Structures are given as C-alpha cells and as structure tokens.
C-alpha cells in the first residue's frame, strides 16, 4: 500500500513534469511527435529506475557510512552520465530507427533534471530500496504520461491558427499550464 502511494504520488499527484518542473527541456523539445515522445518516455523511465537503484546503493552503502555526504552531487551525476551512456549504446545496438528518432535528446537525458531530481528527492525523503524503485517507476510513468499527452495535443496544434509570436515554445508552455491545471484536480487524492 505504501509502495502504491509512492508510485501514484510520483506519477500523477505530484507529476514530475507538471508540478515539480523536472525534465522540461525534453518535454518541450521532444513532444512534437507522438511516437518519439513515447520512446523518449520509455528510455527516460528505464534510466530513472536504474538510477534509483544505483544511487540508492551508492548513497546508503558507500557515502553515508563513510561520512561523505557532500560528495552526493558529484557521484550522483557521474553515475547518471555513465548509465545514460550505457543505455545509448544499448539502443544503438538493438534499434537503429529508435536511436535515430531520439537523436540528440538521448545523451541529453544526462542533463534531464528529472533524473538527478529523483536521486535528490530520494536522499531527502530517506526512501528505502523498494520505495526508491517504485518512486523511479512512478516518476517515469508520470514523465511519459505528460510527454505523450503533450505530443498528442501538439500534433493537433499543428493545424491550429495560432498568432505568429506564440507559435512554438510559447504555446507549448501555455498548453502545459492548462495541463498542470488539469492535474491539480488530482491533488486531494492522496
């Protein structure tokens, strides 16, 4: 039950993108096509779960026992960078089309704030191993959800007659604002 709450809270109620503003860059950058948005969401979810496991182990088995808390940021970001590199190599080997579709945004997962944010929130809230995994899974689901909804809306927006200065990023931001409002409806849930 506790795990379910962690999951739902990260995925819907406190959606990473729409209420913590984590991962806005890919949210704006990759959300113009439904298929690439979905694969980006999956790749990010995968990295999020891996990060949750690895950073939890590093934090609780190495840094805290050794009293090296102040190295958290440096070690977390290094772990994340190498994980992303690993995922990139994996996707390149297994699925060339996907690799090409994600393009520059794949290595940029490293600087996706959602990943480091996840590691930091985990450390801050003192989650245990299982909670961390579910937190990562929830965050990934929430990210994918937001990205896919946004991509769906943007595909329709292509056909809309938007005032010229508002085309592109501004209208995306405003749409995200409306989406965030919709997600506020979940706030009493937990």
């Amino acid at each position: 039950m506790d795990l379910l709450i962690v999951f739902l809270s990260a995925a819907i109620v406190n959606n990473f993108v729409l209420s913590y503003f984590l991962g806005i860059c890919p949210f704006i950058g990759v959300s113009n096509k439904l298929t690439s948005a979905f694969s980006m969401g999956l790749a990010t979810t995968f990295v999020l779960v891996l990060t949750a496991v690895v950073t939890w182990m590093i934090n609780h088995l190495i840094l805290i026992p050794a009293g090296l808390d102040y190295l958290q940021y440096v070690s977390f970001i290094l772990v994340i960078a190498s994980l992303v590199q690993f995922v990139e190599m994996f996707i390149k080997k297994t699925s060339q089309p996907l690799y090409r579709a994600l393009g520059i945004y794949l290595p940029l997962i490293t600087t996706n704030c959602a990943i480091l944010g996840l590691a930091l929130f985990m450390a801050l809230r003192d989650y245990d191993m299982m909670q961390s995994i579910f937190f990562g899974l929830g965050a990934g689901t929430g990210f994918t959800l937001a990205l896919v909804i946004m991509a769906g809306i943007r595909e329709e927006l292509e056909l809309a007659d938007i005032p010229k200065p508002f085309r592109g990023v501004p209208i995306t931001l405003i749409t995200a604002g409306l989406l965030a409002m919709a997600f506020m409806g979940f706030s009493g849930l937990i």
Partner: protein
Amino acid sequence: MSKANSPLNDFMNGIWKQNPIFKQVLGTCPTLAVTVSVMNGIAMGLATTFVLFFSSVIISMIKKLIPNQVRIAAYIVVIATFVTIVDIVMKAQFPELSKSLGPFIPLIVVNCIILGRAEAFASKNTVVRSAFDALGMGAGFTLALLVLGGIREILGSNQLLGTVILPATVEPMLIFILPAGAFLTLGILFGTANFFEQRKKENARQKVIEANRASRQVALPVEQQNEGEEA
C-alpha cells in the same frame, strides 16, 4: 557574434540578444520552479551566475588538458563541485532561503545553461571572454527570473519582496504561484518577447524594401518597380 569580440559585447549578448531563457530556451526547469517570489528568483539567479562564472573560467583554463571523449563528464564534475560549494554556503548562511529553494540548488548541476555555455563558449574561447560571457548569461538569466518572479508574486500574493503592494480589495490570484501559473506566465512573456522581436524584424525589412524602392525609382521604369515590391 562574428565581429563582436570585445568583452562588453560578450556580456551584453547574454542579457538580450542570446538571453538564455527567452532566446535559447535553456534552464527552464529552475526558472519555472523557483519563481514564486522575487527573492527566490534573485537567489537562484545569483547562485547560478556564481556557478556559471567559476565553471566557465575553470573549463576555459583547462580546455587543452581535457581529452575530447570525456569532456562532458569532466565539465559536469567541475560544475558539480561549484554547486556543492554554493549549496553548503547557502545552508550555513541563509538557511531559510536554502530551505525554500530545496533541491533546486543541487539541480543547478543539470541546468543546461551552464553545460551549454561550457560546451559552446568556454571550451573554445579565452578565459577573459568566457568570464564575461558567463557574467552576461548569468545576468540575463537573473533578469528573466526577476521579471517572472515579480509578475507571479504581485499577481499571486499581492506582494513584492514581502511587502503588500496591492490593496486588499484585489483578490490575489492563487493560480499564479501554483505550478500552472508558472507555465502560463512564462508562455505569455515568451510570446510577448517574440512579438516585439518580430515587429522589430518586420520594421527593419520594411525599411530595406523602402530603401530599395527609392533607389529603383530613380533608375527603373514603373513596371519593374512593382515587381520589386512583390519580391
């Protein structure tokens, strides 16, 4: 960028022409997250500027020593080091501020502005130019946060820097300090910035066309003039 090589130009570049938020769309996450009040915005802006300045200088100094393949990792380590310094100092000196900014101070590590400038500017230019570029980008970022924070604080809580400035009869619009308001405000600001930019471009184009027409009027008969207008 081509002929503008003086440090002052590098500095001014960041404030408007290549403003990290409105022109390059970098660093939107902290922008949206911390701008519930002006104070938070300024604190975040200054913290980012500090990190940006020192990491740009250091990266520019050691750019020849870093092997090309591992440069991103090396940059990130430099950046994370300075972020750790900022974080520890803020916790000690301004515990209140540090609490209200929460995990967004450590998240400066992944602020794309810093890595972006390291990769695009500091790794190719001299130390002095990188320093000015970093200061300019930092100033532009802080300015954008200030404006955004100001709008949201005034509309969302009737206050500016903690003092009430709107009469109590004006109902504070809570939505502006909630996440949704952040997206809306930035979206509208962004559109407005685009609007002025496009009008400026349109005016400049109009002037060129008129100048062309004036010069043609002297040289060419009427028919070709019309052709020139359409082109």
